[in-house]
């Protein structure tokens, strides 16, 4: 083994001229984001218990809430059994609840010094945010499996078309990615874990209830409908219903809205990252 001297610069890493800032930016962003996504996967591989415990909540919703409301027949679902109507909503909800946790995680990493150290590397800030939202997406993917299997067992008539299932998985990943950036944006405004917890709770429930996850938009009061209209969760649920159980949907528009929301979320959270690291 070569003794000592680890500090001999790995060829070129330091002396290499800094690349032209703008042209190389997307390539650097992509490479850094990939590196950060990889460590998120490694972390998940080391601790799988969280993935299992996370599966409990959507199951409870499906079994308790779903079965109960199926009997009440109170919600107009356009002819679908309520459980069929509900399952895509619960899928989106469970992804939301996972994603909203990422703001707390990034504050925790700030307090631990992990974030500061990353920010002192030549890494564009959006790459740090993309890594986290990717992790949220992958964790949400585990929920897709759980909810789809449970739904099938409970007798929901799901699509068997692999393309539709893949598209559904994709919009769950994108939606979770967006809500993680929303959470990290709020973290950048709130700066402390306590405040974020308060704001997070104050915002998660309205996002969930002012959406079409549990009931159609048309049964809501007007102002809740207005919230639902700008709530990306509603678009995500609309696409999931269309893809998985075949209700009428605007899947193209839904994808557009969620992707746009994700882009805005990444930009906003990245812009506030410096403030978060300072706070």
């Amino acid at each position, binding site marked *: 083994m070569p003794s000592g001297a680890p500090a001999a610069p790995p060829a070129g890493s330091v002396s290499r001229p800094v690349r032209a800032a703008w042209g190389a930016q997307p390539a650097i962003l992509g490479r850094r984001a990939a590196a950060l996504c990889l460590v998120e996967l490694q972390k998940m591989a*080391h601790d799988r218990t969280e993935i299992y415990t996370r599966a409990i909540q959507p199951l409870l919703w499906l079994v308790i809430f779903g079965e109960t409301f199926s009997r009440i027949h109170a919600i107009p679902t356009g002819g679908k059994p309520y459980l069929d109507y509900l399952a895509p909503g619960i899928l989106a909800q469970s992804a939301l609840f996972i994603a909203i946790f990422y703001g707390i995680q990034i504050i925790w990493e700030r307090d631990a010094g992990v974030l500061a150290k990353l920010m002192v590397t030549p890494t564009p800030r959006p790459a740090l945010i993309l890594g986290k939202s990717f992790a949220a997406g992958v964790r949400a993917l585990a929920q897709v499996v759980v909810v789809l299997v449970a739904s099938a067992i409970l007798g929901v008539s799901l699509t068997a078309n692999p393309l539709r299932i893949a598209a559904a998985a994709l919009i769950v990943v994108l939606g979770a990615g967006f809500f993680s950036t929303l959470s990290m944006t709020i973290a950048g405004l709130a700066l402390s874990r306590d405040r974020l917890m308060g704001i997070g709770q104050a915002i998660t429930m309205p996002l969930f209830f002012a959406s079409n996850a549990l009931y159609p938009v048309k049964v809501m009061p007007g102002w809740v409908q207005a919230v639902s209209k700008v709530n990306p969760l509603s678009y995500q649920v609309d696409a999931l219903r269309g893809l998985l159980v075949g209700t009428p949907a605007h899947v193209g528009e839904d994808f557009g809205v969620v992707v746009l929301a994700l882009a805005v979320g990444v930009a906003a959270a990245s812009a506030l990252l410096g403030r978060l690291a300072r706070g």
Partner: protein
Amino acid sequence: MTSRSEGAPPGPQSRDLPAETPAVACHGLTHRFGDHVAVDNLDLEVRPGEVFGLLGPNGAGKTTTIRILTTLLPCARGAAEVFGLDVAARPLEVRRLLGYVPQQLSADANLTGWENVMLYTRLYDVPRRQRRQVAGEALAAMGLTGAADRIVRGYSGGMIRRLELAQALVSGPRLLVLDEPTIGLDPIGRSEVWQRVDALRRDSGMTVLVTTHYMDEADQLCDRLALMHQGSVRAVGSPAELKAALGPDATLEGVFRHFAGGGLGDDDGGGEYRAVRSTRRTAGRLG
């Protein structure tokens, strides 16, 4: 404000003026948190290749200074340069020159040591084919080869510090910035960290900027020291010079107490103390 009064007092100081670009140069650096002035018109110069210690009581502004130098805080007033690069104007280039270990234990506890180091090889664009070798050597140099595949959560404090040094080294930094690298470590952990830093510096000639509250470390391991108090530098010199300036039997702790302990006396900005290297007159006045 008078910045470094170069050449004003004739004497040994002028001989020491480095011909090469300083590793760190701060002039009139000031940083406020709200109304609180954390760094107050700070002047500092670190020469290439030296181990430079930043000392001072809690709240003196050491970490704030470091956070400005590492581009984490904006440089609102005054100027800070790393190897001639302005920190505010060229943060990305500055970051490529730095290895940084923050005050908190900052390795990712949910990854293995190896994964922690490999992440940094990627973030610093170490070519793919060299990554494993670079990471392996950095871990070996920090004595962590055997522990590399364990999750960091199970590491001791000293091991985490050495892992963080390994992370900071993969880019071959020209300036290694260590904020209290031995805080909270037992004596064995402390001396292990310092042995590694010393070996690094000997083998690679990198510049090290370090803060510590341990006077014995500062005394034995730093080439030069700056004593900070209330946001500004009160004295600069080698440990021997600082002690000699205070009196024949002075200890470094005595120097520390002298500049920081009384603390609440008249705040004269410490301008004349900065000339402590060059003068016996100062020693006379202080003694």
